[in-house]
């Protein structure tokens, strides 16, 4: 009976997760179809989404993984040594992708140099506004300056829609997004126990919601997901627990997760990358000047490796590994990434200090290297299982 009850709640929760994924997919189509409202795309996690909502525009992060065809379309404009994410962003515009084509304007807070150049290329397809993002995250001058830049962003949105963005509405959106970030963090933390009730791939599906859904809809849907997941009695057992650390695992870039979770039965329990939990570890002050609050809040989020000091990001990564008691870390960055490809040593030695095995993978969006990727990941899982003293029974065939 206990098992049956567990299965029912489990299935209800999984059904709810699928509904959430569908909600996110539908939202994209509805953005394409929407008439009469301005549509805005943004590139970097340092873009205050509160302002997009306060301005009443439809919005989405440009975070899709391109197919090899899309990537090569992007390469028309770049050298070969740009990351596949950059090439994808350009490629979708070059290929007249209906979703990317529907934006009236794209905003880019100057994230990495590569993405900055990409946004300049994108300008030939759609109006782009480049905004400054200071690198020295703790400097007061940087914070003052970032506040000014955020106000520029707000004013520009007002010009785009023809209506001034109201401070009161900004404050309201800050509260909504604080709630959304807190929910995503709490849901992620459900994975801290020995058996994570939600897989890494499922969690990233929820993170997609943060990039595609409007704030209120997002909060509502996440609250439902949380209720469902908290209702599941946690099964016994402890699968292999892994952390993914690195640059970005964009929407659709699921090759690694697929091999790790579906083929090898491991679980990714925490992801420290720019489409993972990083944005959910900050809270924007709800009182006082909302623009100062946004400037501080966003600079206080778990930092991208382009920020200074680098140690802040490394320390955060190390802290997550401990909190989520992982057995190993897959450090993955996109080929040619000037931020993560170069700072890998600092991250890797932080994990080594914790005696955690690390698999380093430089990845791209091609599909031809599946075999080599699988061999590497499989061998890593073998090493981890042997460290744990047991070889998982899932590996036995006909046993």
């Amino acid at each position, binding site marked *: 009976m206990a098992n049956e009850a567990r299965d029912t709640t489990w299935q209800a929760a999984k059904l709810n997760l699928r509904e959430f994924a569908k909600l996110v997919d539908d939202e994209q189509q509805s953005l394409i179809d929407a008439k009469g409202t301005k549509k805005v795309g943004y590139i970097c996690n340092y873009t205050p989404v509160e302002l997009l909502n306060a301005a009443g525009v439809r919005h989405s992060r440009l975070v899709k993984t391109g197919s090899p065809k899309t990537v090569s379309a992007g390469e028309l404009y770049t050298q070969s040594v740009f990351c596949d994410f950059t090439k994808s962003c350009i490629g979708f515009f070059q290929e007249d992708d209906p979703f990317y084509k529907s934006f009236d304007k794209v905003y880019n807070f100057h994230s990495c140099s590569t993405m900055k150049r990409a946004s300049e290329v994108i300008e030939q397809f759609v109006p782009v506004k480049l905004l400054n993002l200071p690198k020295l995250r703790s400097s007061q001058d940087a914070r003052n300056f970032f506040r000014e830049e955020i106000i520029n962003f707000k004013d520009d949105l007002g010009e785009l829609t023809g209506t001034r963005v109201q401070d009161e509405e900004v404050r309201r959106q800050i509260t909504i997004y604080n709630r959304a970030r807190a929910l995503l963090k709490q849901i992620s933390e459900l994975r801290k126990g020995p058996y994570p009730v939600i897989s890494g791939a499922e969690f990233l599906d929820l993170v997609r919601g943060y990039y595609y859904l409007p704030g209120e809809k997002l909060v509502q849907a996440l609250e439902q997901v949380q209720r469902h997941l908290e209702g599941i009695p946690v099964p016994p*057992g402890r*699968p292999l627990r892994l952390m993914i650390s690195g640059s970005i695992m964009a929407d659709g870039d699921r090759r690694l997760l697929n091999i790790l979770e579906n083929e090898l039965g491991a679980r990714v329990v925490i992801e420290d990358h720019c489409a993972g939990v990083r944005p959910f570890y900050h809270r924007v002050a709800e009182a006082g000047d909302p623009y100062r609050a946004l400037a501080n809040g966003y600079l206080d989020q778990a930092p991208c490796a382009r920020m200074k000091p680098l140690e802040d990001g490394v320390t955060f990564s190390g802290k997550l590994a401990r909190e989520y008691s992982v057995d190993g870390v897959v450090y993955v960055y996109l080929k040619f990434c000037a931020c993560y490809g170069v700072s890998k040593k600092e991250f890797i030695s932080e994990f080594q200090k914790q005696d955690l*095995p690390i698999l380093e993978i430089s990845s791209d969006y091609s599909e*031809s290297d599946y075999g*080599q990727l699988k*061999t590497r990941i499989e*061998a890593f899982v*073998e*090493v981890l299982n042997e460290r744990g003293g047991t070889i998982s029974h899932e590996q036995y065939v006909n*046993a």
Partner: protein
Amino acid sequence: MKHQAKDIINEGAWKFTTTVPVVGLDIGSRGSKAILLHGDDVFTVLLPTGLYMQETADELLNKLLQTSGLERSDIAAVVGTGYGRISLKYDDIPYRVVTEISCHAMGAHAVIPKTRTIIDIGGQDSKAIKVDRATGKVVEFVMNDKCAAGTGRFLEKAAAILGIDLRDLGEIALKSEKPAQVSSQCAVFAESEVISLRARGARENLQEISADIAAGVHTSTARRVHNLLGRVGIEPDIVFTGGVSNNVGMWKVLEEEIGAKFTPAKLDLIFAGALGAAIHAWKFFASTHEVKRTKKHVAKHETREEARLPNGE
């Protein structure tokens, strides 16, 4: 071929005497290797990999049965490894998959118990592996990127352009007095580099030019492999495994490049992966038979089963 375990081990006692026949299959991108362990007998077979991996594997198994005089039903367990490991299927024999990284580590450890570092250069990839001396388990490994430079495939390409049999390439390279500079990091570009080097050579000294180019190709491959090694460290005993370990030129150039000597083995280490796989098959057999005997293991098994249950969708 039939060997005695004591004849293929460098020193010390052989730890892997089996009570039942077990098989390791290493289906590589170019060559397929198989080993059958039975008591203290070690049977080896080597074939080029065919288009259909299962056919190649069946042929290997049949040859092993022929040379050992055993029946298919005698085989207690098979472990598959290498590039083609995923495409194999056996309905009548317990079968398990282990990556070639773990298998090379175990295989090298079995014949050279002091193995600490392995360089494995195969047909389409190369790996540096750090091994635990006590157990033969992998401590750390690095594999080349999806790129043919630094692999056997690169040497094969070069041999084809030079019109030399791959098996002679190493010997010919050793004759060079001034190795050509093949600087490219990319096998495709390196190929055009080799073609243009060759085009520059005069007709009368073609042999000399070929040797210089062959040597240059070896040096460039060695440099890539050295880079990999740098990431896991170079501690003795260093063992060279994989198909390319039979290339005398590569052996010498790599030793010079890393500034250390490889420990020679008594078994052709193209079989390192297959031997490791066979040992894993033996361990697999032993562990599954323990599972049935000891209560503790049964309990652990059930927990795992249960843990998997809700995810059955």
